[in-house]
């Protein structure tokens, strides 16, 4: 693939007048509207893909703001009630000397989501413009984003598990904060956004000028 990526004479299925079903991967002649095997709709390129990406990306970003402003965990012990935001909790952990855990939390809850936002935005922009990054790298980036996106939910899992386990009535109780909902929504929307991205477009735009220049 690396070699192929560098290779200018890569031809896409579309160039060959073929279209594959996204669901069952059966290849049909271009222009086929419905997959005869699984019955799903077949489009060569999803033209509204970028719109969906941006829309969902925007919602994800909107949710990410309250997810960081509001407290994530509400820890009530016998004597006090503590509410920690994501970053605040990490700082608290650093103060207590648990730097490792703090780094994990920061990476899982701050770095990865932010990187995802940036990666999706980059991909969405790169398909509309000429990019210096090679198609293969972008394809790899897309795959990584898609793969890693679900791991952002680890924070939500921690909150969910703690909330269900630590319920000792008056002694101590941990409840999810308002941020956890927004964080979950943020993760969900970024995942949907990443999924909405039609990775085939990575290959299109740059092949077109290449193709046209080559063809013309």
């Amino acid at each position, binding site marked *: 693939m690396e070699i192929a990526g560098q290779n200018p004479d890569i031809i896409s299925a579309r160039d060959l007048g073929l279209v594959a079903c996204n669901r069952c991967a059966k290849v049909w002649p*271009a222009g086929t509207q419905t997959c005869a095997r699984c019955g799903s709709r077949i489009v060569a390129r999803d033209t509204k893909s970028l719109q969906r990406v941006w*829309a*969902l990306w925007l919602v994800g970003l*909107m949710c990410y703001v309250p997810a960081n402003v509001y407290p994530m965990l509400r820890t009530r012990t016998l004597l006090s009630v503590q509410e920690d935001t994501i970053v605040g909790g990490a700082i608290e952990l650093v103060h207590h000397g648990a730097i490792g855990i703090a780094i994990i939390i920061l990476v899982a809850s701050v770095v990865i989501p932010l990187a995802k936002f940036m990666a999706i935005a980059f991909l969405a922009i790169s398909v509309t413009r000429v990019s210096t990054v090679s198609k293969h790298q972008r394809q790899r980036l897309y795959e990584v984003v898609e793969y890693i996106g679900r791991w952002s939910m680890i924070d939500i899992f921690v909150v969910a598990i703690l909330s269900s386990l630590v319920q000792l009535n008056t002694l101590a109780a941990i409840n999810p904060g308002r941020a956890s909902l927004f964080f979950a929504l943020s993760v969900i929307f970024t995942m949907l956004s990443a999924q909405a991205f039609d990775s085939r477009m990575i290959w299109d735009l740059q092949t077109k000028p290449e193709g046209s220049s080559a*063809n013309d």
Partner: protein
Amino acid sequence: MTETPPPVAIENVRKSLLARISMVWAIPFLALAIALFVAWQAYDARGPLIEIEFADGAGIAKRETELRYRDVSVGVVENVTFSSGLGSVVAHVRLDKAVAPYVDAGSTFWVVRPELTARGISGLDTVLSGVYIEGSWDSTIGPARSRFKGAVEAPLFQSGQKGLQLALRTTPGGTMTDKSPILFRGIEVGRVGKARISQQGSFAIAEAIIYNDYSHLISPSTRFWETSGFTFSVGPSGAEIDFSSFATLVGGGLTFDTFVSGGDPVEDGTVFEVFADEPSARNSLFNASEVETLEMRVVFDGNIAGLAVDAPVELSGLKIGKVQSVSGVIDANAFGDNRVRLNAILSIQPARLGLQDEVTPEAALRFLEARIQEGLRARLASASLLTGGLKIELLQVDDAPPAPFVTGEGIVPIIPTTQSEISDAAATVEGVFNRINNLPIEELLNSAIDFLNSAEAFVSDEDLRETPQDLRALLGDVRGIVTSQDVQDIPGTLNAAIGRFETLLTQLEQDQLTTRLATAVDAAADAARGVTASVEGVPALVSELEAVAAKAKALPLDQLTTQLTALTTSADEILGTEAARQLPADLGAALNEINATLAELRRGGAVTNINATLESTRQAADAVATSTQDLPALVDRIRRVFDQASATIAGYNKGETLSRDAQAALRDISKAADAMTSLARMLERNPDALIRGR
């Protein structure tokens, strides 16, 4: 390759602008709309910010400390700052919009902290959750306000807690427990708030609330009293300790009762007095004048030790009140120097002043004011010589210097004073003690010790110690005599003799001797009568005898007396001889003989003999009766003899020559007298001789 563009072109044509825009854009717009709506709603729901000023910010934390109303959070402290000049702490509280209108000018705020009191622990939840600010306001919307001053402690009247608001004040000289529950039959029906001391210090007054459910229990005749502390009594059923509840034991409390039923319900603000105990509360009800007293005060200079609370206040010797409190007072403005003066508050009972029209404190004040203008003054006087206690006397002082009399609302009028008259009982008592001190007690004790020493020496003397032994020996001898067989036999012998005599008498009775005896007795009576008649001449004889005796008295009788004494002594000696001691034994023998004789008598038909004897007795008595008829003549003759004798004695006085004859005559007379004496003795010893004729 050429086929590809047309379908693209067709597609481009086919799709309208609207179709090109994905429906997914609705999601971010919806999210935005929701966010905006939520933001607006949050902003809209935000209530106003109020500032509450506290003396300190103990436990008040930003964004944590809540404002509560009826234990429900209605706001939160957003910020804690200092007031300008760092004089106090200002808590900025964001109110809930719903309650904000009610937080008006009449609201009060205080910090609820954990508190441990005798009644229990309050605000325990704040130990864990931290303090909170409690607010209290009524349920009507008033003029808004945003700056408040926090109260130091929870107010007594919390809005929503409806009740009858009263004021309780102490009785003169009484005490009161403030911040305590009011119990009725052991149930808390109200509370007393913090008490204030009146300006003059003469009483304390506190606000109190009776909860609405119980306010009907209060009527004008209700009396309050203290239940704090406990009573301890020892009675027939054992020791008894009594207290109403642990809370009142430690923290005090009040209770009340309405002793007289009926009465209108009281209104808010009514003042009641708190009595020390139930009896005094009960008594106060039936003695209204005791309650409505007139307060006046007297300021004394100088030494006033001895004036105590409850000391009597007298007007012309009649008690009209008592001293309610005694305190020192320093008032340079009023008295001109900084010396401590005695300030005695008097409570005067108008009823005792004998006012005619109305018995009220006001009338009493007017009366006293008039009297003071005329010269009524107060002074200290001794109430008790023993204790040195003082009383206050009001008395009329002529040409007293005029004194200002200030009355008015809230002013306790002063009664001017005059020279105190304190009899120095203490000094007198001291004098007495001095005199006792000066008594020669030591010398007295010394001589007492000396006396006791010599007494001891005497007692420990050997001879004296032996005296009891001698006595014992003597007693032993006496016992020997008493227990001797002869003495002990006497009663038995006597008994036997009496027994026989009784049988003899019975026999006499059986032989119907009584009638004869009666005749004999009659004869004897006749004889006695004769004697009585003949005795009539005796007084003259006696006077003669007296005359003789008087003359005889003149004779030297001393020698005779000494002779008599000697005779007596010898008689004593005779009695002390062995023969005399043998007398009891002889007596016993004689009695035995008598017994034997009596037995013989009984045996030998003595009765007939006796009969004869009685007969002769009667005859003898008759003879005596006849002979006594001759007695007057005899007496006459004796008188003549006495006359002669006295003449002779007179002659003896005249001349010594006759003395020998006279002495002979006297000797004769003496012999005759002796003979008569012996006869008389014989008759004395044996009266029977007259009867028996022997």
